[in-house]
């Protein structure tokens, strides 16, 4: 049984710099380590990190995300990825051969795509790609948004949580690292999966969550 994690708020002392090193969401000053975020204190190796309890999606190269086409130009699409900035998908980074000016033939305004973050530069310009296997335009189903920091809990250790939801609802589910989740199935299944995911979002850091979610899923209603 893990012990109950402690909550940190900005400026709170979370560790001693003699024993630990400042990890994500912290800074060191005068021999002490302070938090810069509202979050949970997490010790990994000899690093102290803060797992944020709120905040925007921080795009990292390699992340698989669900994006929504926001704008179209002759050579690229601007994609909303639920981050502080729109991301760019260039015609060279899609699996189709796109003639100049034909961009809207392949992806229209408000279309949803499964894509990967290719790179993020120092000014936080984000470049996407759809050229890898498994990346495609999303059709049908429903898209919901949760806080990006809750994504790991929705997926679960080795994907156990999300597999359980898929099993009991009969839905196909894709979880984007940016907090967008695509769910496809009959409306009852989608509704149940949505409820389960929202419950995980609300209770992400509590004990016994897996059992409660299983109970919700097993329930006939």
């Amino acid at each position, binding site marked *: 049984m893990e012990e*109950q994690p402690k*909550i940190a708020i900005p*400026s709170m002392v979370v560790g001693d710099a003699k024993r630990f090193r400042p990890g994500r969401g912290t800074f060191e000053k005068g021999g002490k380590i302070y938090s810069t975020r509202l979050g949970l204190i997490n010790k990994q190796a000899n690093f102290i990190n803060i797992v944020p309890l709120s*905040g*925007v999606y921080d795009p990292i190269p390699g992340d698989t995300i669900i994006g929504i086409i926001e704008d179209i130009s002759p050579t690229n699409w601007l994609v909303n990825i639920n981050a*502080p900035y729109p991301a760019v998908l260039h015609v060279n980074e899609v699996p189709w051969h796109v003639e100049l000016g034909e961009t809207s033939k392949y992806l229209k305004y408000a279309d949803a795509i499964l894509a990967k973050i290719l790179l993020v530069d120092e000014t936080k310009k984000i470049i996407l790609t759809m050229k890898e296997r498994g990346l495609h335009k999303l059709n049908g189903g429903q898209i919901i948004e949760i806080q990006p920091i809750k994504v790991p809990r929705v997926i679960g250790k080795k994907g156990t949580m999300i597999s359980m939801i898929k099993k009991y609802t009969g839905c196909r589910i894709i979880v984007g690292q940016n907090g967008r989740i695509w769910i496809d199935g009959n409306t009852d299944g989608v509704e149940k999966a949505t409820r389960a995911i929202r419950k995980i979002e609300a209770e992400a850091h*509590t004990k016994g969550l897996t059992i409660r979610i299983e109970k919700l899923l097993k329930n006939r209603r």
Partner: protein
Amino acid sequence: MGMKKPEDVILFKNNKRIDGRKPDELRPIKIEAGVLYRADGSAYVEWGGNKILAAVYGPREALPKHIQDPRKAIVNARYNMAAFSVEDRKRPGPDRRSIEISKVISEALERVILTEQFPRASIDVNIEVLDADAGTRCAGLTAAGVALADAGIPMRDIPVACAAGKVEGKVILDLCKEEDNYGDADMPVAIAPLTDEILLLQMDGHLTYEEFEKALDLAIKGCHIVSELQKKALLKKYERVLEVE
């Protein structure tokens, strides 16, 4: 400051202020974090008769593009008073006073927010005074600090503010309405409580140097008390997150 005091208003009697407080006593304060549905972070503060709501949106893309700063996020605080928040209805819209307050609050917040983590973005802080009772900019900045933490904005410290002043020759903490109207000095102060760095400082009235030192000391003490309330409000909201159903 500077209004002519009516005969029947007694600001000081038996070392008690017009509302019964001691010179170094704060008005009752209540702080709640995370009170709005749409906002990324929010807070509600009741301070004396003040009722103030703060909401944070961001970081999000700063628009129009020409205002973007490629090195860091822009902190855009907007202080506004609702038309019904004051005795004589205020015409909606920013007046010069609101614009000035918005500016000094933006500058105070910018100092503690780790803006370099979000180049080209803007962090929008909205402070809405719903019921005014003197000291609205201090209560507003205090609410903004909580809303920023609630929104997950990375900060070195949670900013907090409190005012001190002078009434009938006595240096006092946290002026109420009558003290603000008929007193001799009013000095709002915002600090980063970890280091006592001064983030906001304004003064209006007349203080000797010794009186100023006393007032600053008092204001900073007041800030620390309020800072504890901010932290309690955040921990209270998020500790519920950890409770098992």
